[in-house]
């Protein structure tokens, strides 16, 4: 039933993960816009799902991931519970951060996801440090840090990558290049040849991929992961994609050239492209539609459940600040 050479099971599972990410974010946007249940900003990755699915497919639970403000997809693909994540977006009890972080600080340490970050670029040095601890401990795990194209203009990009190369740490840096930083076309504010050129100048092996081709992302990541696990030097992956939504779910993004997102959706949707690949490989449309429907149902249900979950107990506002001199025990 499958074409020769194509890993059908993997392809199906990549599609499934992309469908789940898409459905999760569609529901999250509805929760924000329609239901006003998400009060903070959310940053959808609709149209960028192949990066998350392709990379995470090659990571073990013990491997470590750090991400950005636009990190729902990465987190879900790393294995976090969609319900705990949706609860977090809605600030509810049982949210993966107890309702204290929200979308921009989503994290699930149990699956090695050490956090999105509200500060652009900040995770680059932190991720290098996670890899440093792994090396110090003689562990075999690897680290992936994902950031946007805008982050390459911040100092931590230089400092964190230099660090990883100097100490030869088991880490992959991924620039998920969706061409925009907030309302700015990133190239207008970026000198030189961009992410990969900068990484190369820092002595790092660097690969550029079509980030909307999930099979290619997965293939590339498989090779990189193998090299890192074999004790190789840190690497860089420049994944080219496109931000189909506004910067946040509330941003109409009128600053983009007319027709650009529509064109991208038509021509370059990673889900549609993977469906075509799988159809070619012999998967039926009905099977694929089923994956879609399952994902939709999962996330519709997850939103319902999250909306029915109570807010956190108010005393948790003073918990988990610190052990010593905690506001939970200290008068202030």
């Amino acid at each position, binding site marked *: 039933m499958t074409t020769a050479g194509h890993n059908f099971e993997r392809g199906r599972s990549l599609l499934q993960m992309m469908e789940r990410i898409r459905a999760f974010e569609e529901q999250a946007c509805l929760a924000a816009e329609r239901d006003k249940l*998400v*009060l*903070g*900003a959310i940053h959808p990755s609709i149209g960028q799902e192949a990066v998350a699915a392709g990379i995470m497919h090659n990571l073990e639970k013990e491997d470590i991931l750090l991400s950005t403000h636009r990190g729902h997809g990465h987190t879900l693909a790393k294995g976090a519970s969609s319900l705990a994540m949706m609860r*977090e977006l809605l*600030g*509810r009890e049982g*949210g993966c*951060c107890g*309702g*204290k*972080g*929200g979308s*921009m*600080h989503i994290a699930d340490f149990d699956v090695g996801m050490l956090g999105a*970050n*509200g*500060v*652009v*670029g900040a995770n680059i040095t932190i991720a290098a440090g996670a890899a440093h601890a792994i090396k110090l401990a003689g562990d075999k795990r690897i680290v992936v840090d994902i950031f946007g194209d*805008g*982050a390459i*203009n*911040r*100092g931590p990009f230089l400092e964190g990558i230099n660090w990883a190369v100097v100490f030869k740490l088991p880490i992959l840096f991924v620039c998920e290049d969706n061409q925009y*930083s*907030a*309302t*700015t076309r990133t190239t*207008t*504010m*970026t000198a030189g040849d961009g992410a990969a050129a900068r990484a190369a100048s820092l002595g790092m092996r660097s690969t550029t991929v079509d980030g909307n081709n999930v099979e290619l992302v997965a293939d590339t990541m498989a090779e990189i992961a193998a090299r890192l696990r074999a004790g190789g030097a840190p690497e860089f992956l420049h994944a080219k994609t496109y931000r189909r939504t506004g910067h946040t779910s509330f941003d109409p993004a009128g*600053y983009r050239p007319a027709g650009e997102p529509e064109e991208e959706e038509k021509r370059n949707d990673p889900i549609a492209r993977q469906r075509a690949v799988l159809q070619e490989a012999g998967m039926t449309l009905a099977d694929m539609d089923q994956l879609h429907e399952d994902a939709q149902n999962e996330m519709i249900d997850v939103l319902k459940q999250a909306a029915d979950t109570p*807010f*956190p107990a*108010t005393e*948790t*506002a*003073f918990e988990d*600040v610190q052990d010593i*001199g905690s*506001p939970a025990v*200290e008068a*202030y």
Partner: protein
Amino acid sequence: MPKLTYRDASIAAIRQSMQEDSTVWCVGEDLGRGGVFGQYKGLREEFGEARISDAPISEAAIMGAAFGAAMTGARPVVEMRFSDFALCATDELVNQIAKARFMFGGQSRAPMVVRKPMGLWRSSAAQHSQSLESWYAHIPGLVVACPGTPQDNYSMLKAAIACDDPVVYLEHKGIWDNEGDVNFDEPYEFGKARIRTEGSDVTIVSWSNTANLAVEAAEKLSREGIGAEVIDLRSLWPWDKEAVLGSVAKTGHLVVAHEAVAVGGFGAEVVATVAEQAGHQLKGPVRRLGAPRSLVPYAPNLEDMLRVTTDMIVAAAKDTLEKGK
């Protein structure tokens, strides 16, 4: 007198300053599209992209470059987007900008304004909600401004752009839409408080949006026959010690309220100054209100646990009056 929002008052101040002085230069991320809170709307169209400059996501470079420009003839208005991100440029602000004139023996000036929207903004969580005004008040070389009303956001921003010192300009991001009358001719002098309400029973010292809550508290108190004098400091360095000491001399009761964490907040400085200089005039215990030393959570009900509210100010005022009897 036009009615303007807090946001539009700031735009008016910048527009007028830019019309009057061609060296005024605004720089920050996404300014061309009006800034993240719309606080630069329309300015790109009027002044062009050389003077309303977009910037890369490089807070250290935005701050550092603005400083270099300020030493070389420009008058930059720097946009930090959220005051939290300004922490990426702390060396630039604190080690460089604040210190240069002194270290260089008076050879240089840094006439620049660093706009840093601060404070709670519903469910923005711990990295987008801080109020760190007390940090900057502690740093010699910096002027610290915390406007709480449209009028003040107009006149203080104009004054900040006109002055030759670096000004840390902390707008409160929760009140961009607040409306009020703005008199374009009202002057502003740093270090002069605004007496928001007069009263002779209790002095309430505050700034930024908490001053607005203090005014509400004073209204509630007045309905109970208690006269509260609300002093909106407006600038924290310099700050209007005379107004506070004068009011305390009259009322004998002091409440200080702010949104920042109480421990190490600027309220401590106000209370300590009063204790040192007018402790004997106090008729009841001073009351200091600020956030508990916890971080700002995302869930709205948790976030509310960190807020200083109108009712808390009312209660504190009554408490000091009660205990003073």
